[in-house]
């Protein structure tokens, strides 16, 4: 009976650690809203500036929707100030900054342009 409780506790701890690790190492993605994003000179400029931020693994632009999705390397994050600076350097103003969940992040690449 005691052994059973111990085993159950160890399983619970192991599962908890695994869940924590998977969250910590998950690829985080951010959806960034920018006005006037129609020309590729603008889109590539934003991709280039955002791509230069440490930890950014992939940047994809949906020109029609005016959104940029930045996917981070495992465990990396981006703060809004860095995103704002990069978008301003590209000649635009940031209109929205939203962290996407892991599932959304995984799906973002497939849906983005």
């Amino acid at each position, binding site marked *: 009976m005691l052994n059973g409780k111990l085993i159950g506790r160890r399983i619970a701890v192991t599962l908890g650690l695994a869940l924590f690790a998977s969250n910590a190492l998950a690829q985080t993605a951010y959806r960034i809203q920018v006005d006037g994003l129609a020309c*590729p000179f603008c889109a590539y*400029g934003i991709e280039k500036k955002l791509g230069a931020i440490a930890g950014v693994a992939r940047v994809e632009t949906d020109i029609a929707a005016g959104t940029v999705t930045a996917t981070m390397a495992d465990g990396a994050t981006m703060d809004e100030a860095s995103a704002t600076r990069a978008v301003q350097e590209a*000649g635009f103003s940031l209109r929205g900054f939203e962290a996407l969940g892991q599932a959304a992040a995984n799906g973002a690449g497939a849906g983005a342009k």
Partner: protein
Amino acid sequence: MKLRFLIRLGARIGIALGFLAAVIWLAFIPSPKEPPYTFVGAWGGKGHAPGQFDDPTGIAVAGEEVFVADSRNDRIQVFDLQGRFKRQFGSAGAAPGQLGRPMNLAVRDGRLYVAEYVNDRIQVFGLDGTPRAIIGGPGSGPGQFNAPGGVALAANGDLIVADFYNQRVQQLKADGSFVRQWGRTGVIGIGAGQFNYPTDVAVGTDGTVFVADGYNDRIQAFAADGAFSHKWGGPLAMNVFGPFPGWFATVTSLAVDGRGQLFAADFYNHRVQKFSADGTFLTQFGSRGEGRGRFEYVIAVAVAADESVFAVDFGNQRVTRWRPQADSVRDPRP
């Protein structure tokens, strides 16, 4: 009594406004001096296969071949003048022969010059796709680039480069050494010789350097000695955009034909405009849409020796071909 006064005052104001509108129209909205070009055909479609595009952004013609910058596919595709695929070269990366978002192109003396927006360089290829040279690198110093958008060649072989985020145009020797620049590095301006994200350049038959001053919605011209010559695009060519003839809504590409006439890709107006070298409006063609003769953002333009004009339809992921109407071909105008 008061009502009659107000009516008379209103009528006079209406007449004055109408007169003012007529003056503005006559002063700033020119009439075409040639018929528009005729749509001949188109090729492309979105994808990664040969003959398909993922963001076509640049074009150049060399003899019987059309070179297209297929930007998100990081490659150059080559077609014959009818749009039949011939070959392709380039892949994503920064090694010699690889490309990082190729933009406006130029061809001269058997070489293709590619402005690489992400790699901050001009890469030179043989027309068969063999990488020949890399000019420049990232930065804001002399001979460096921050997102070059377009390149042209002077008669002596010097490169003229639209250095987009550095807000300048640079002239470099063929080995990349600095000759001079127009515009103040990193400073946007609307005065003569200043730029607001220059996107492309072209060299006229007399050596004049034409600059697509993208977000100033105008074209600026500089004499071969570098001195400012003239500018046009909207009232006083001072960052006023609009849909009227001779106005622009972001100029993204320039091309000069054998007679020194200039073609401009007018991106947000979904049309190509044609001018004489002094900026006189000659004609325009294209309108927004998906069908024949329509554009969804025209981004680049090139002209062949036979006077065919090739325009890149960015949003519809295709290249379109146009011909001048027969009477305008036979009627050489200044």
